[in-house]
């Protein structure tokens, strides 16, 4: 049943452009809330910098970007077609 409905509708509600726009918006709202929450919840840091406002946010973001780019750099050397070992 569900299968047929999906095929007929073609686009599932979750992937409609409008939903995706709302999801992005929702994500930014949630991100803002987690930042604001820090004003009410004291983050007990172990060092000095990790108590500063929004440290975990920018640190998580920047290190992830760095990891993606390091993996991209490594890929230049180690990336092969997935049939590489077959022959």
């Amino acid at each position, binding site marked *: 049943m*569900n*299968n047929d409905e*999906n*095929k007929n509708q073609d686009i*599932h509600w*979750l*992937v409609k452009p409008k939903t995706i726009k709302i999801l992005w918006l929702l*994500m930014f709202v*949630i*991100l803002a809330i*987690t*930042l604001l*929450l*820090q004003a*009410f*919840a*004291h*983050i*007990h840091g*172990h*060092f000095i910098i*990790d108590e500063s406002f*929004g*440290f*975990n*946010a*920018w*640190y*998580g*973001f920047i*290190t*992830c*970007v760095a*990891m*993606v780019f*390091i*993996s*991209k750099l*490594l*890929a230049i*050397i*180690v*990336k*092969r*077609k*997935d049939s*590489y*070992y077959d022959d």
Partner: protein
Amino acid sequence: MINYIPPGLILIIAGFLLLIVPKQLFKPIALVSPLITILLTIQVPDGVILKSSFLDYSIELIEGDKLARLFALIFSIMAIGGTIFAINNIKSRELGFAFIYAGSAIGVTFSGDLISMFVFWEIMAIGSTMVIWNGLEKSSHKAGFRYALIHFFGGVILMIGIIGHIYQSGSSNFTTIELNSWPQWLMLFGILINAGAWPISSWIGDAYPEASASGMVFLSAFTTKTAVFVLLKSFPGTEVLIYIGIFMIFYGIIYALLENDMRRILAYSIVNQVGFMVTGIGIGTEMALNGAAAHAFAHIIYKALLLMSAGSVLYMTGKRKCTDLGGLYRTMPITTICGIIGALAISSFPLTSGFISKSMISQGAADQHLTYVWFLLTAASAGVFLHAGIKFPWFVFFQKDSGLRPKDPPLNMKVSMIIFAALCIILGTFPSLLYSILPFNVNYVPYTSGHVVAYLQLLLFAGLAFFILLPQMKRTLTISLDSDWFFRVIGKKLINYFSIELNILSDGIKRGTPEQINSFIEQIFKYHGPSGILAKTLPTGRTIFWVIIIFALFLFLTFVS
């Protein structure tokens, strides 16, 4: 008199039975024996309770303590969960080997001496190789062979280390070991091979994904975590483990980011997660060791859950590459939700099991003022969300519409996923359940408002990075060369080169020498060559084989007498 039966032995015997019994007995044995193992495990008291001696060495088959019970318990929970998942789709033979493998892992945890530990360690290698060989595809055979080579190599290194250690110290006691000379270093090296430490780490990504859908659920739990157990017991506070662990963490993240095969993503993330545990063991304080043990416990559950979810996709679609998958949330809601719960748990989201275990390792680093380690662990926590927490569910269940419309898998597979998903949330919501069975007393509160906010910021902004960089993450039909390239390509070329060159050389020499001399050489070779009657040596391997057989018989007789 039998006062106690080694819990692992039940699974090993059940495993052997599964290899031979008729179909009607398959389900009863498969479902009941892991439950008996759980019951026996929780009843093991502290101290050595089953002991005998063999060739002047004391053999302690059951030595109970909190650490051993913790690992044996999670191994037996894993055995029952994996069995429920596998029962409709696994061959009796394959499950039999999986039980022998699981039972010997439990055998390692209860071993009180290095000799029985080593025997169980090697049975694990055989059992797991057989599980891989029962995989679905032709490539399983080759990958299984490479897996066996690496593990028997690791076994030999460990054995040399153990023999040297017993020779030096005069004791075969399986306890804390000081790294003061080469036998102990060899032991550490042999154990680290099983933990998946770089550079001998490629086997996890190479061999595990070649097993069947259910096979990999079993494989993910035992080998690496038994190594973690042995490190916890024998090498706590060994500083070099901090650096090895950190390297494993980032190696796992980077390779998982590059990977296209969904089960290989999860395999690399095993290395990443074991890296956290190894780092904790290296830090070596009670907080960090508790963290490593708790993380092993939590990890086995959520990694099995992730692999059950991936296994369900593989079982229903026959596909494992991200480039072929996507959009499955439409028709596989239960698999999607359980996969997401596993992904949140591995990323240490608040209210999941990963949150209460991993943060103890970071706390351990902070307590010791290991600044760089703390910052790297924090970055790595964000990286886990990136490479496993979002990447796996996104590319498998969302991403694009692949046109595939598989249903959720059969009932038993759904039940096992729901049980393990529930465990992830229960452990995360009620931390005291896990904290009360850890090796040391826990003096740690994971749920403070500050800690929760810090983790939410870290993880959600890592998520933002993922979606912003999504074009960079597009999957391609590629693999990434790993350290196994050296023996799979360079090693092969060297062998080919030398065998051709040497053949040409020896043919040339033969042609250039008179007939009589050649036949004289042939005669000598016949009697004095490697297999000649006058020169052949009896291999040590055969002797060891018979000693092991006698050892097994001996143990059996000890039980029945």
